[in-house]
């Protein structure tokens, strides 16, 4: 049997091949594999499977260099999600995914379906999702279009997660002109499971039926996968009607049904029909199991009449699963789905013959030899060369930049930084997210550097956070890659968690441009170095290339999703100062570094200089020291120094809780020789502000770990001010003013957005949530 063109199929022309994003060589490779011309259906299948999104053809060799092993890793890269052991026979499944391009075209649905997809990746492993995180990047909020995108994305993530009933508990939002026109929308999901329920997505057992489960298949998002592999352009504008619509209600039913199905023992494998829908899910399952499959598209439940095999195979309709059931258990599978008002149809079978075959009734419309469809896809090693311009920026002496007159009062500078949307409170965002459903959230957004979720039936908890400073990565990809991992680890440690593993979402530009591929290669190298030193292996991730707009590529943004384990609930630590009279200790030390800082960007509109150096051994020591102090029960609060440096970190400790402002008196004379603005606002790495009643012991522990540490001040609960002195330098700021700057910045910017708010009302979504 071999595939024949269907009546009415367009003839394969070079133009048609090009339209499918398939290069001349790739087409020759395909012809060689088939040893004949492909049918239109086969062309569609290959264009999806060989798209960057599915094939990782530009990234795989580089990703292979990442560390993926540790005794606690139960499932590394390659499955729908990574899994690590939590102890007591429990495990954590987690994964991050990008939905950048769909969100740029239709922010609400793009973000919502992104959340839906990552949820499915986690529960198809057999894990019950317990939390979501979202890592977002936008242009400047001064632009109405950006406000529209920001508002729509946040509402989309919220409406979806809220409806399914999974709390969204952490993330970041960064605003920078480089993301204008190409926002980054990365969603992460974390789930908990019994190790024994771990299930993989490998087709097995000749004769086992393949079943389509969940929503019907419509003409949604056809070629979304290759869509995600192109620069944003008029072309993608034309793709608009392909945007998928999410149905969180069906997702919730599918979640419950899938977990019941996995525990029932009636199935051998389950996989989300995500990007490139039925095609990639079935082909990947076959390749993983190293078996053949045959699928009859006429058996697939469809939403619209007259759908062609091409459309059915490539549809990206949401809330669908592909299941390999045990032969003879079909009825049992249907019964479980039926309980949740969902359908399950047998659409194919696992076969011994090593082929990937698609039929339309009797007619074979696509047939590929063995699993070569997935394994033989092209791999590229593009040229990598650093951009001269960036090298020049990095070399620039930023200390030569004259201070603005207003800076004579450092309180002015601090206020401006606190009101920078990147630093300011993100409450406007997470107030729209149900953060407490499932009653597991111990540290909610805004309360700590990472979120903490308890694990029922144990005294343990899970700490999670996403982080990445794209500006650092832009100025120095390797250092920036290291820092992304280090900051995420620091944040997790600040709430009392031992960093255990990461997932990552690599958002870059067009890999065929040497300067972009250089950024990619170097950033991944830096990530790998940090993961080795911090013992946080990579268990999975996602690559999103072609994040470009007419004005060029976005900042290279390798977002790190860090997962840590809190051994005992009593170790859980928050970021704001607690008790009057507590000592303030700084772990790590300031430097004269100013390059790549939020200070330069916000106050001087300058993006230049070398980003802060990241000493990985030091980062590890700081985390070990902090965790030992926390375990000793002597840490009342911990907050890492990130954007805005030490002064902003101290301010956040004082005003982070809008209902409980806590003053502080800080004295930094020990570093009086450093330039004041570097001391206050420089972003030297490896620093944590600790509140403690027992500074001596904290210092002793730090010393034992070789971490420079010093008492820098005292919590003055009711003083109502933050005072920082350093030699001649003196910063005195009333907490009310700082709090207003920090807590009201984003609401004020969005209030002007009633027009955008109204636009959001367009979406035919549940008004209620």
């Amino acid at each position, binding site marked *: 049997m071999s595939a024949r063109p269907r009546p009415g199929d367009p003839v394969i022309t070079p133009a048609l091949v090009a339209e499918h994003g398939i290069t001349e060589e790739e087409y020759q490779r395909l012809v060689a594999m088939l040893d004949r011309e492909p049918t239109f259906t086969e062309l569609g299948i290959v264009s999806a499977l060989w798209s960057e999104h599915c094939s990782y053809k530009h990234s795989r060799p580089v990703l292979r260099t990442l560390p993926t092993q540790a005794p606690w890793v139960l499932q590394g890269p390659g499955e729908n999600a990574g899994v690590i052991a939590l102890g007591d026979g429990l495990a954590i499944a987690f994964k991050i995914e990008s939905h950048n391009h769909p969100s740029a075209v239709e922010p609400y649905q793009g973000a919502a379906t992104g959340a839906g997809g990552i949820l499915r990746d986690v529960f198809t492993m057999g894990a019950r999702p317990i939390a979501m995180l979202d890592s977002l990047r936008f242009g400047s909020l001064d632009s109405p279009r950006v406000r529209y995108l920001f508002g729509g994305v946040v509402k989309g993530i919220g409406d979806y997660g809220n409806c399914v009933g999974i709390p969204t508990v952490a993330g970041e939002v960064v605003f920078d002109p480089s993301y204008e026109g190409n926002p980054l929308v990365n969603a992460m999901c974390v789930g908990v499971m019994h190790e024994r329920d771990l299930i993989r997505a490998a087709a097995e057992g000749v004769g086992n039926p393949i079943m389509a489960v969940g929503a019907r298949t*419509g003409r949604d998002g056809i070629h979304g996968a290759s869509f995600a592999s192109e620069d944003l352009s008029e072309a993608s504008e034309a793709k608009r*009607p392909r945007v998928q*619509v999410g149905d969180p209600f069906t997702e919730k039913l599918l979640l419950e049904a899938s977990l019941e199905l996995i525990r029932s023992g009636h199935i051998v494998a389950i996989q989300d029909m995500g990007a490139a829908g039925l095609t990639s899910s079935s082909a990947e399952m076959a390749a993983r199991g190293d078996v053949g499959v045959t699928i009859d598209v006429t058996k697939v439940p469809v939403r619209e009449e007259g759908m062609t095999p091409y459309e059915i195979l490539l549809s990206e*309709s949401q809330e669908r699963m592909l299941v390999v059931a045990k032969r003879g258990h079909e009825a049992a599978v249907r019964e479980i789905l039926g309980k949740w008002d969902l359908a399950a149809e047998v659409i194919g079978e696992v076969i011994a013959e090593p082929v990937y075959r698609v039929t339309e009734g009797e007619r074979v419309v696509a047939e590929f030899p063995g699993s070569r469809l997935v394994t033989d896809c092209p791999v590229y090693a593009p040229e990598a060369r650093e951009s001269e311009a960036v090298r020049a920026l990095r070399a620039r002496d930023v200390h030569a930049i004259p201070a603005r007159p207003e800076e004579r009062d450092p309180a002015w500078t601090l206020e401006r930084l606190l009101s920078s949307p990147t630093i300011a409170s993100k409450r406007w965002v997470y107030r729209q997210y149900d953060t407490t459903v499932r009653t597991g959230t111990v540290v909610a957004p805004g309360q700590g550097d990472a979120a903490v979720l308890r694990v029922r039936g144990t005294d343990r908890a899970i700490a999670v956070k996403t982080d990445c400073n794209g500006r650092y990565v832009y100025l120095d990809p390797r250092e920036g890659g290291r820092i992304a991992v280090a900051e995420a680890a620091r944040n997790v440690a600040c709430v009392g968690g031992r960093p255990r593993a990461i997932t990552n979402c690599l958002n870059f530009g067009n890999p065929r441009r040497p300067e972009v591929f250089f950024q990619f290669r170097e950033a991944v190298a830096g990530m790998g170095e940090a993961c080795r030193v911090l013992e946080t292996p990579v268990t999975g991730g996602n690559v999103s290339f072609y994040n470009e707009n007419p004005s060029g590529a976005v900042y290279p943004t390798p977002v790190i999703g860090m997962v840590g384990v809190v051994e005992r609930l009593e170790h859980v630590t928050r970021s704001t100062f607690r008790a009057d009279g507590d000592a303030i200790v700084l772990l790590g030390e300031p430097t004269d570094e100013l390059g790549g800082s939020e200070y330069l960007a916000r106050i001087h509109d300058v993006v230049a200089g070398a980003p802060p150096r990241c000493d990985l051994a030091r980062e590890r020591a700081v985390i070990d020291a902090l965790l030992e102090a926390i375990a000793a029960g002597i840490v009342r609060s911990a907050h890492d120094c990130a954007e805005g440096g030490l002064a902003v970190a101290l301010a956040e400790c004082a005003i982070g809780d809008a209902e409980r402002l806590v003053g502080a008196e800080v004295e930094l004379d020990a570093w009086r020789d450093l330039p004041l603005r570097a001391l206050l606002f420089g972003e030297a790495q490896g620093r944590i502000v600790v509140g403690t009643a027992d500074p001596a012991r904290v210092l002793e522990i730090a010393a034992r770990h070789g971490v420079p540490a010093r008492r820098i001040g005292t919590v003055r609960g009711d003083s109502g001010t933050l005072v920082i002195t350093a030699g001649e330098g003196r910063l005195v700021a009333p907490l009310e003013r700082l709090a207003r700057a920090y807590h009201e910045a984003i609401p004020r910017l969005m209030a002007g957005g009633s027009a955008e708010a109204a636009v959001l009302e*367009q979406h*035919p*979504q549940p008004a209620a949530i």
Partner: protein
Amino acid sequence: MSRFRVSIHIVPRKGILDPQGKTVADALHTLGFRDVADARIGRHIVLDVAAADAAAAGAAVREMCDRLLANPVTEDYEIAGVEGL
């Protein structure tokens, strides 16, 4: 200038999933309304606008739909009626 009441229908574009419509159709079936084949749910907007004449009112509202009221990616709209006040 005189005043007009312009009413607009905004509906999910054909072929685009309408979870709300589907759920409502299913609910109507369970309630025993077996003869309902399909339900689509959109928005009904009534605007009170001042314009030179009905044609001008319609034209203005069409522009409002294009720029704000309808989502060009997922929705179609139609002006259902323009009546003088």
